[in-house]
């Protein structure tokens, strides 16, 4: 019985929320699914698609109808015989009215077609904007994820440093207490300062990793308390795959970057809008049918065809017509505004023609430069590691100074931090190149060097 109750309780509690464990590309994929920024951009696509449908609906038939029912007193007689009006309680009856106009625009001399082209191109602009938002989102997600990995990657080194310094301090304090002269007060204080400095670094790293994780979750569209964990325990090593050559990157950016589609479709939309606005003074050819009916039984029906009787009649007919909305000043102003948009987009295109290749070139050079700098950081780390190893060994064997051991350790920790910073800068440059090329995934960077 108790087991059954416990089982039920466990079932009601539901499964424990398992942490979401993702690698860098996984974070990007999750962000593309959930991010409000992308959803906002997609909503704009829907809004402009609706506007396109509205333009396309101009050539569909439109029906305007009106009907009503009202009380009517009695009226007998006509204009030639004289009339008698009665308002007694039994003299009231219904008065009904119905009228309808069915119209069908047939031809707009190109205005509707130009408006349709403008709206369709604008939808494509918004679609390209979604793609651009996705790429920017991927870049931001990578940056925050790298920052988080950088901070958690320093943890083992800081732990190692703390452990080593704590042990060295214990030993130095014991030796100083013995008074043998091998350790000075300055050595002990130097070690204490080192211990405190490392604790500070550890706290800064913890705060940094938590902040970066919070920013990452926010960018991915996850709740602040969502249990997200990155698969890697630190920054990934330098990629062994050869980096795509700069000309190939430029070529790919010229083809894949959504900004180009935004600009070309934006220009097409603005040009069509100019055309549509210039045609705004042209008439619209339409066909229309109308029907009007009135019935009021308490009023005599006037059967004289020269006498209009608005209370008892049926009228209708079919027509073909032209409709003008002439407003020369406003039309010219709207066309000028649309032309200004065309010029603005052309200026943006000229800016992008030099700006996008510059972004690609800068990011590509960033990777090659960071790769070279990483080699120096590697050499520096290697030297600092050897310094620490030998200085610590000498101190441990009583043939070296505490100061040398401490300096070696601090040099190693500093070199390790510089190396991690360099590695982060290398990965950030890669993320920037992926974005500058208009791509989403790391694989886009691989190819013939």
């Amino acid at each position: 019985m108790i087991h059954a109750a416990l089982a039920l309780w466990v079932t009601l509690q539901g499964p424990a929320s398992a942490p979401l464990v993702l690698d860098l590309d996984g974070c990007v994929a999750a962000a593309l699914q959930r991010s409000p920024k992308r959803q906002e951009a997609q909503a704009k696509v829907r809004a402009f698609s609706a506007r396109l449908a509205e333009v396309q609906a101009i050539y569909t038939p439109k029906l305007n109808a009106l009907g009503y029912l009202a009380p009517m007193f009695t009226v007998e007689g006509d204009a030639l015989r004289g009339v008698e009006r009665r308002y007694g309680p039994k003299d009231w009856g219904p008065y009904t009215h119905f009228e309808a106009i069915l119209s069908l625009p047939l031809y707009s001399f190109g205005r509707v077609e130009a408006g349709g082209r403008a709206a369709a191109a604008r939808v494509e602009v918004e679609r390209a904007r979604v793609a651009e938002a996705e790429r920017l989102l991927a870049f931001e997600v990578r940056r925050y994820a790298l920052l988080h990995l950088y901070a958690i990657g320093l943890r083992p080194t800081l732990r190692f440093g703390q452990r080593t310094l704590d042990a060295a301090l214990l030993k130095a304090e014991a030796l100083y207490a013995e008074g043998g002269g091998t350790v000075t007060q300055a050595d002990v204080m130097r070690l204490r300062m080192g211990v405190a400095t490392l604790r500070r670094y550890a706290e800064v790293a913890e705060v940094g990793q938590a902040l970066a994780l919070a920013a990452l979750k926010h960018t991915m569209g996850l709740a602040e308390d969502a249990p997200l964990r990155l698969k890697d325990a630190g920054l990934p090593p330098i990629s062994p795959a050869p980096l795509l050559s700069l000309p190939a990157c430029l070529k790919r950016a010229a083809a894949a970057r959504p900004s180009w589609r935004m600009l070309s479709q934006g220009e097409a939309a603005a040009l069509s809008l100019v055309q549509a606005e210039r045609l705004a003074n042209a008439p619209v050819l339409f066909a229309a049918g109308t029907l009007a009916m009135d019935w009021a039984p308490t009023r005599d029906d006037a059967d004289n065809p020269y006498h209009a009787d608005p209370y008892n009649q049926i009228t209708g007919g079919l027509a073909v017509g032209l409709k003008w909305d002439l407003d020369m000043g406003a039309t010219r102003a709207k066309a000028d505004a649309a032309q200004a948009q065309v010029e603005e987009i052309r200026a943006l295109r000229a800016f992008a023609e030099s700006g996008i290749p510059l972004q690609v070139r800068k990011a590509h050079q960033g990777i090659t430069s960071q790769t070279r700098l990483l080699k120096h950081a590697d050499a520096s780390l290697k030297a600092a590691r050897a310094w620490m190893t030998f200085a610590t060994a000498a101190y441990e064997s009583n043939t070296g100074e505490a100061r040398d051991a401490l300096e070696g350790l601090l040099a190693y920790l500093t070199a390790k931090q510089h190396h991690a910073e360099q590695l982060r800068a290398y990965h950030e440059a890669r993320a920037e190149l992926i974005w500058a090329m208009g791509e989403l995934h790391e694989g886009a960077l691989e190819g013939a060097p």
Partner: protein
Amino acid sequence: MMIRYTCLILALLTPLTLQAEPIDAQARAEALIAAFKAVKAPHEGQALSAADLKANEAAFLALDGFLDREALTHAPITPHAAHFKPEQLSAFKALFWQTLRLVAYPNSGAFFAAARYTLTPAKPSKEGFDVALHAVLEAEDLETDITLHWSRDGRLVDVSFDGASLVLDYRNQFGRVIKDKGVEGLIRALEAKHAQVTGAK
């Protein structure tokens, strides 16, 4: 257990008896690492059990077979040998050798037990052969390049960490101590360390 270690020692000494055959330095390096891993290291704040101490005796003996004792104890003081009296020289070598064993064997054992490493094929050197290995201690995010320098007869004569020779470092360290405190000062420092690791102090 004893038979196993005796067999191991015999196996390790085999290259010495077959002088005509070139040694397989890489296999020798693998065997050295395995021998290091066999050393029992005490947990922090605890002493080794009697059984572990017994096991370590055999493990230490096995490791002795890999090291060129004369080269390792004499090379660090070669430029300073003239400062040593004969009795000081033998006292230094004995003390240094014992301290080296007591410190390096358990520490190396603990290191290789925790590290992930890859060996590269042996390359001929002036003394014999060099075997390089890249070791990674993931828990501490520590990577290091170690080179084992073997003599032609298959004995370890030096170790380099990230390209820096341990023997050369000892030579300079000891030179500095001798310059500051004399040979007696060096021996006293080593005695203090020996006493510390044996628990005599």
